[in-house]
């Protein structure tokens, strides 16, 4: 299986670490909704087909990636930085740009 890291290009899966189901939504840190926390910590989707996953390029640039992988064929249809453009946005904010 090859994952095309946006920084590093196509790399073998042994360079990556699976970091879990990408569909999970973490409750607000102070939330006391245990059902929501339980869903976040324990519930995982297990689709036969496309699955949103988080992978870390741990043997490379160490970026976390959002990957859409077909669990039946291992076909990867999309790879994006998990950070999105937050980092860029934060820097722009710090530099007074919009």
């Amino acid at each position, binding site marked *: *299986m090859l994952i095309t890291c946006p920084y590093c290009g196509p790399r073998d899966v042994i360079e990556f670490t699976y*970091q879990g189901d990408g569909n999970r939504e973490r409750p607000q840190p102070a939330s006391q909704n245990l059902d929501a926390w339980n869903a976040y910590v324990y519930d995982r989707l297990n689709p036969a087909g496309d699955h949103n996953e988080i992978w*870390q390029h741990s043997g490379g640039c*160490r*970026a*976390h990636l959002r990957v859409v992988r077909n669990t039946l064929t291992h076909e990867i249809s999309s790879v994006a*930085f998990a950070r999105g453009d*937050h980092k860029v946005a934060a820097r722009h904010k710090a530099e007074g740009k919009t």
Partner: protein
Amino acid sequence: MSPRRTDAGGRVDRLRTIRFTFDGAPYTGHAGDTLASALLANGVTLFGRSFKYHRPRGVLTAGVEEPNALVTVLRGEVREPNIAATMVEIYDGLTAVSQNRFPSLAWDINAANQLGGKLLSAGFYYKTFMGPAIGPLKSTRFWMFCEHFIRRAAGLGRAGTAADTARYERMNAFCDVLVVGSGPAGLMAARAAADQGARVILSELEPHFGGSANWSGETIDGMPAADWAARAAGQLEGYDNVRLLPRTTVWGYYDGNTLAALERVTDHKERPGKGEPRHRYWIIRAKSVVLATGSFERPLVFPGNDRPGVMLAHAAERYANEYGVLAGNRIALFTNNDSAYRSALALKKAGAAIVAIVDVRTELSSEMRELADEAEAKSLSGHAVVATEGGKALSGIKVQRFDMTNGALAGEARSIQADCLLMSGGWSPTIHLASQAGAKAEWNAARQAFLPPKPTQQWIGAGAFTGSFSTAEAIAEGRAAGLSAAGGTGTPTALPVVEAAPGDPDPAPVFEIKADGKSFVDFQHDVTAEDVRLAHREGFISVEHLKRYTTLGMATDQGKSSNILGLAIMAEALGKPIPEVGTTRFRPPFSAVSIGSLAAERFGDLRPERLTPMHDWHVANGATMYSAGLWYRPMIYGHAGETIEQAYVREAKATRESAGIVDVSTLGKIAVQGPDAAEFLDRVYTNMFSTLAVGKARYGLMLREDGLAFDDGTTWRLGQQDFLMTTTTANAGKVMQHLEYFLDVVWPELRVHVTSVTDEWAGAAIGGPKARAILAACVTGTAVDNAALPFMGIVHGKISGVPVMICRLSFSGEMAFEVYSGAGYGTHVWEALIEAGKPFGLVTYGLEALGTMRIEKGHVTGAEIDGRTTARDLHLDWMLSKKKPFIGSAMMDREGLIAPGRLELVGLISLDNQPLNGGAHIVEDLDEANPHDSIGHITACCYSPALGKYIALALVKDGMARRGTRAHISDPLRNRFGPVEIVSNHFFDPDGSRMHG
């Protein structure tokens, strides 16, 4: 000259004699021989004893599919069992032994198992060893009792116990076209792809390229096929864009066109060349693959088909043409197809007498009758072999009239004298890799074989693999496949011209001759036709159940010669056509893979090691090193004649009396930097870090998202936006990944950067009543007194001219300091500290003394933070901030995590003054005969010099409430039982007066 060696022919080098032993007896062969061909040349027909019945067995095949002739190869103390003699190339000094026999191959006591043949049929063990419902041997205990004896009697080779000293390596490769198999199809494909400029890898599991061309006796382009193949392979060697891999088995076809291969680099050599590994594990990523893996000839199922001297027809042809060895002098053949006639003629030409060709078919083509005549063989069409005669070698066969439309036998059986019987039951394409790659194989009624499915990955088939069994077709398909795989288009040049014996590729649909006696389907697992029918009668009708119940196809050969036969017999029993019974899907590996090659550089002299900057100093100064993960750390600095316990007790005692120094460079160190660094640490630690003053350190605890304890360590605030986090040695990588995950995925808005700086710093912890005096003697540029350097304070200074950072914190419970310097200066600073400590009696101490002092203090490590304990279980609830949420805060108070009955950290004192053992269980009532009701276990133990007692840390059910009570150690594995007292985990100096000074 050996009795069975022909005067000429084949690729063996008759001028080079190789000496080897088999079962202790010396033999000779020639360069180019396999162990099988060399032994056959010496007249050896008995190679081994069968799995269950201990029947004598010879060699059935000439290649990788061999089920019978398995041997153990010895190299010094290292033994490798279950190697097919057909795949072992002989070398001077080769030592091979036969398997599964006692006391010797010729006289085997367990051959008596044959007399109980009915008893040992499929499912025998399940049915017989169920055991009585009550009593000392009830149910499975009876099986466990009997198993010991059964395992000794049944089985294959014995694994060795000596460590494997060989080196293995792993290689990644990329190519445009991988060609698997180098018969005429593979050679043509490789050449065609290479001519297109593609990067080509050609792999061949045998030592020589050419496949069937090496023994077919055919003519290609006017020269012997073997010469044509050698020339074609030689030409490929001249291409820069072609890599040739002989002795390389492609054993796995994975997604993304990734293939796994095993190259046997030095198994055929007396000793490896300099730097050569034994095996090389190739991971090959190919844009496209040409599968030219050929086909396997099938045996026929009839009584006595396993007697030594019964062999596949092409195998004997191969031994004659490729190795110059005759499998017999008076040879009979038994066939359901035309290919055996070519074999007969080849053997006749090589010098054997062909006594009969027994063919199940009544109608023979005129070409086959001519071939039989040319071989001077008696042609017995419409006949079948119903028995074989002889003991450990074949002496004759019995044949009877046979009607293939209903399988009926008729007329008198008559005997024919023969010392070799060749059988041919048709051919099965070697579709294993295609099956691994995805789709289901398709049954072809004409070929009576499963043909490869439509490709689901980027591969193209060629030659016998596709069911095209003639060399002319292989050559045409091979070139087309190579061109197509390389993305080229065909230029209509002439193909090599093949002259071959005629023959219809389709066999008659006959798999079994039903007559009295054991007819073997799976030779290696001793599965008979009757076993398959028994399984059917007992309801195991799915092919998957059949396989598991009878173990058909589950031996080391994975049923390469037996799968189709088993299916055919099952289909007949079910009254269904074969495709409706279906076939099992092939899984990797195609053939046995050495575990060493998979481990490769992770083991042995290629395994990575992590050494601290002071490593060489430790070794030079008498440290016994201890491996902890990839790290090496000093265990003790033993004096002459000291035991480990004496050494660590001396080191710990000296530290508490004067001072000790230990290398802590292995601790994980992570720089956490940025405007939001303090906020980030507040979220990942259970306690507050935003309130920490610059120049101070704080002990921190992390939980996992599920609320269980994760890791602990101190974090130092070096600047407003600059923290240095330390983690436990073992968790350094995990903590780093944990932090990165939260910064990347959960809180990308935080302006924080984390950097692993473990290898940038050398660390030395110096502790004890004299520690401060020692520092005062060698540190310049800063004071180290209580005012300048209070508990948890940080100062910067120099030692022997080198900048150092010193934090006053304590793991040993003494007044202690951690001194960090740049890794490159580690040894320099360490030596300066040792020198400064001399007048104060400073000792070096290792992990054992470190552990002892932490147990005395009751500090936790990974043994207690074991992924099951909570902060409360470890009495660290004082670190759980109520002022802020943190990772794990929402989940840590779930019912199960705060319920009574949890394992809690306590101390134990041995009351019988005997050592305690890690992992030992703790019980309320001692019952040595029948240990039960564990209330916990020991996590760490030592002899405490401070207390003068054997002590331990333990996790005990409701441990807090049990303090001051007694319990027992119950450790039946090590036969250690004894009384202990449960106490607080803070054994020594509980109020911390020593470290606060």
